[in-house]
C-alpha cells in the first residue's frame, strides 16, 4: 500500500495495434488476472485464437468482439502494483472513435496511445493524441508496439517518437510525451526492461505509469454546483448538496449564490452525514448556509475568495467533439447540461473544423460524426463558467440531442462573453 493516488489511464490505438493485448499483458503480469479468468481465456483462445494464449480476450469479452476479433466499447479494468492502483479505460480504435476516446480520456491522467511499429503514426494516432490534449490529460505515453516485427530497430523507433512528439507540441496546450518501444505480445518493456532493446534508456511502461502525476487540481476558488436541496423538518436542517470543485471551502467562509449575487456564509458542511470543518475539491458534500437565501438545483455556490472567478454568461465559444449521426448545423437547437444546470443551446455559428492530420482549420457549415471543431452557442439560461483550460469543471458542457436525448457532444469553453 502506498500514498500514491489511483492513476486513471485511457488507452487508444488503431485496429490491430495490439491494445487489448497490451492491457491483457499489464493485467496478467501484475497478477490482476485470476485463475478462473485465465482458464476462461485459455478456453476462448482455443476457440477464437490461433493456438497460443490470446491476452486480448481478457478485455474483449462481448460475443461480437470475440467473433470479429475487435474491441467494441470502452472497457474499464482495475489493477494494482505494490506501489499504486490503476483504472484503465480502454477505448476501441475503429468506428465511433471520437466518442469512445472522449469517454475514456475526459477524466484520464495519462493517455497511452499505441502504434504498430510497422505502420508508425497514422491519422488515428494523431486523432487520439489531439483528443487527449484537448480534454486535458496530463501526459501522453506513446507505446510503439510490435517492435519485434521490425527487428527492434532503434532508428525507426526514434523516428516514430519524433513524429508524434512534434505533432503534439504543435497543439494549443501540449502535454508531455514519453515514448516506449514494446512488444505487448512477448512482454518486452511492459513490466520489465527488455534485453532486446539495450539502446532504450527510459523506464518500462509500467514504471512510467507508477511515477505519473494525477491531473493537477487548479487553484481556483470553491465552487459547488447545487444538485439537490436537503431538508429535514424535525431539525430545521436545510442544506445544498453537490460536489465541491476548486476550493477548499471552510465553515465560516463567505459565499455568493450565482448566477445571482446573493451573499451569505457557510454555517456548516457535512460529508456523507458527518460534519466537516473543511471540504476539499472532489468531495461530495452538503453545505448549510447561514441565511435563508433562495437557492435551487442548477445554482452555483461560489467562494468569494480566489482568482479566476467564473462569470455568468449565455454566450460561449467552445471546442466540440461531435459524437452523433445527426450533424451539427448553424441555427441548430440542442439541449445542454453545464454543472447541474440544463437548458437549450442554439448554434449561432461554426467557427471552424480542425483537420487533425494537418491541424488546419477550415470554415464549414456543419460538423459530422467524429468531427472536432469550434462553435458559438447561445444559451437559454445563464451558466456560471470559466474557460476549460482555467477550470475544467466550470468550462465543460454536454450537448444533448433534443429529439432522442442522445449525448451529442462534449464541449469545452474556449472563450465566453459576460452576460449583458
Amino acid at each position, binding site marked *: *500500500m*502506498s*500514498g*500514491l*493516488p*489511483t492513476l486513471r489511464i485511457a488507452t487508444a490505438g488503431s485496429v490491430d495495434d495490439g491494445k487489448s493485448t497490451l492491457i491483457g499483458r499489464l493485467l496478467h503480469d501484475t497478477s490482476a488476472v*485470476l*485463475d*478462473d*479468468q485465465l482458464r*476462461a481465456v485459455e*478456453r476462448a483462445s482455443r476457440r477464437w485464437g490461433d493456438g497460443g494464449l490470446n491476452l486480448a480476450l*481478457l478485455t474483449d*469479452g*462481448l*460475443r461480437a468482439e*470475440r467473433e470479429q476479433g475487435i474491441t*467494441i*466499447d*470502452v*472497457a*474499464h*479494468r*482495475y489493477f*494494482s502494483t505494490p506501489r*499504486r*492502483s490503476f483504472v484503465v479505460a480502454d477505448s476501441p480504435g475503429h468506428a465511433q472513435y471520437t466518442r*469512445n476516446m*472522449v*469517454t475514456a480520456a*475526459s477524466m484520464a491522467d495519462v493517455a497511452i496511445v499505441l502504434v504498430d511499429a510497422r505502420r508508425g503514426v497514422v491519422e488515428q494516432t494523431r486523432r487520439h493524441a489531439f483528443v487527449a490534449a484537448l*480534454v486535458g490529460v496530463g501526459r501522453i505515453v506513446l507505446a510503439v508496439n510490435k517492435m519485434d516485427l521490425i527487428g527492434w530497430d532503434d532508428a525507426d523507433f526514434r523516428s516514430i517518437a519524433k513524429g508524434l512528439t512534434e505533432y503534439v507540441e504543435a497543439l494549443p496546450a501540449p502535454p508531455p510525451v514519453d515514448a516506449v518501444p514494446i512488444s505487448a505480445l512477448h512482454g518486452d518493456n511492459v513490466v520489465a526492461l527488455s534485453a532486446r532493446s539495450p539502446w532504450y534508456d527510459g523506464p518500462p511502461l509500467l514504471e512510467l505509469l507508477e511515477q505519473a502525476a494525477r491531473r493537477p487540481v487548479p487553484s481556483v476558488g470553491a465552487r459547488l454546483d447545487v*444538485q*439537490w436541496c*436537503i*431538508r*429535514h423538518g424535525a*431539525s430545521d*436542517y436545510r442544506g445544498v*448538496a*453537490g*460536489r465541491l470543485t476548486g476550493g477548499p471551502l471552510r465553515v465560516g467562509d463567505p459565499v455568493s449564490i450565482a448566477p445571482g449575487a446573493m451573499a451569505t456564509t457557510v454555517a456548516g458542511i457535512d460529508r*456523507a*452525514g458527518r460534519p466537516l470543518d473543511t471540504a476539499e475539491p*472532489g*468531495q*461530495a458534500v*452538503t453545505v448549510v448556509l447561514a441565511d435563508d437565501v433562495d437557492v435551487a438545483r442548477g445554482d452555483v455556490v461560489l467562494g468569494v475568495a480566489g482568482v479566476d472567478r467564473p462569470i455568468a454568461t449565455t454566450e460561449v465559444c467552445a471546442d466540440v*467533439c461531435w*459524437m452523433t449521426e445527426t450533424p451539427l448545423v448553424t441555427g441548430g437547437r440542442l439541449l445542454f*447540461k453545464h*454543472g*447541474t444546470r440544463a437548458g437549450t443551446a442554439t448554434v449561432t455559428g461554426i467557427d471552424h473544423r480542425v483537420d487533425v492530420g494537418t491541424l488546419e482549420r477550415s470554415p464549414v457549415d456543419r460538423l459530422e460524426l467524429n468531427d472536432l471543431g469550434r462553435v458559438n452557442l447561445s444559451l437559454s439560461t445563464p451558466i456560471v463558467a470559466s474557460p476549460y483550460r482555467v477550470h475544467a469543471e466550470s468550462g*465543460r458542457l*454536454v450537448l*444533448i440531442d433534443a429529439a*432522442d*436525448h442522445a*449525448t451529442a457532444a*462534449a464541449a469545452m469553453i474556449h472563450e465566453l462573453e459576460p452576460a449583458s
Partner: protein
Amino acid sequence: MIGSLTDELVDEAITIVREVTAECEQPVLLFSGGKDSAVLLHVAVAAFAPGRLPFPVLHVDTGHNFPEALEFRDRLVASIGAQLLVASVQDSIDRGRVVEEPGPRASRNRLQSVTLLDAIAEHGFDAAFGGGRRDEDKARAKERILSFRDRSGGWDPRRQRPEPWDVLNARVHRGQHLRAFPLSNWTELDIWRYVAAEELELPSIYYAHERAVVQRDGMLLAVGGPVSPETGEAVSVETVRYRTVGDMSCTGAVRSTATTVDEVIIEVAAARITERGATRADDAFSEAAMEDRKREGYF
C-alpha cells in the same frame, strides 16, 4: 493493493445517486440483501442525510433466498425507515408471465428479469439503481454508469451513450428506463474496505460458519430450500462463507475460516479466483452468460 481509493469512490457514488435522483422522476433502488446492494443503500442514505431517502427500495424475490438475507433485508430497511417493495418471481409464475424451468436443478435466476421489468412498468420507475460493479464480469466492464434500456429492458452494448467527464445525461424517453450503477468503479476489496470503515452489518453468511453442502459443478451448494442432494452426491458439513449472496440454487459457498471483516479483507486480497467464478453457477453457463442475460433485461 489499492490505497485509500474508497473515499474518492464514495464521493463519486454519492454524486451519481444525487444526480440521477434529481434528473429522473421515479427512481428506485434495487436491493438483494447482498453486500453490494447493502453498501449502495448505505451510500444512498448518506447522500441525502439527514433528509429521508427520496425513493423506495425494490427486492426482486426469487423465492429461493437465504433466510439470513431476508431477515437482514427487513431489519435494515426498517432501521432506515425506507419503503420496501417486493416483486416476487413466484407471482410471475402464478400469473403465467414466466414458466419455471423443469428438473431438480431449475434456477429462477433468469426468470427474475421478467419480474423486474414488470415491477418497473407497474410502478412507472424511470431509473433503477443497482449495485453492479465493473470488476465483476467482462460484460459489466463495458457498461456505462448509466445504462439505457429499451421497452424490453435489453442492453445494447453497441449503442451506449458516451459519458464525457462525470456530467451525466440521465434523460430518458417515455417507456424507456435507465439502470444506474453508482458503484461501477468499486472492486470487491473496495466494498469490504467500506464495510470495515463504516462498520456495516451484512448477512451473517458472509462470514465463516458451518453448513451442510454438496459439491456440484465445482461449487459448494448449501443443502436446503431449492437444493437437495442428488443420487451419488455426498452431503458434508464444511466451514464456509459466501462471497456473493444470490439465489440459493446457483450461489456457491467458499471454504473459509474468515469470521471478521479484517479476516475477509485478507482473504479477498489474496484470492486467486474471482468472486463470480468461485460462487456463481449462473455465469458459468457460457463465456458470455452475463452479456446474454443483460440483453434480456437483467440487472
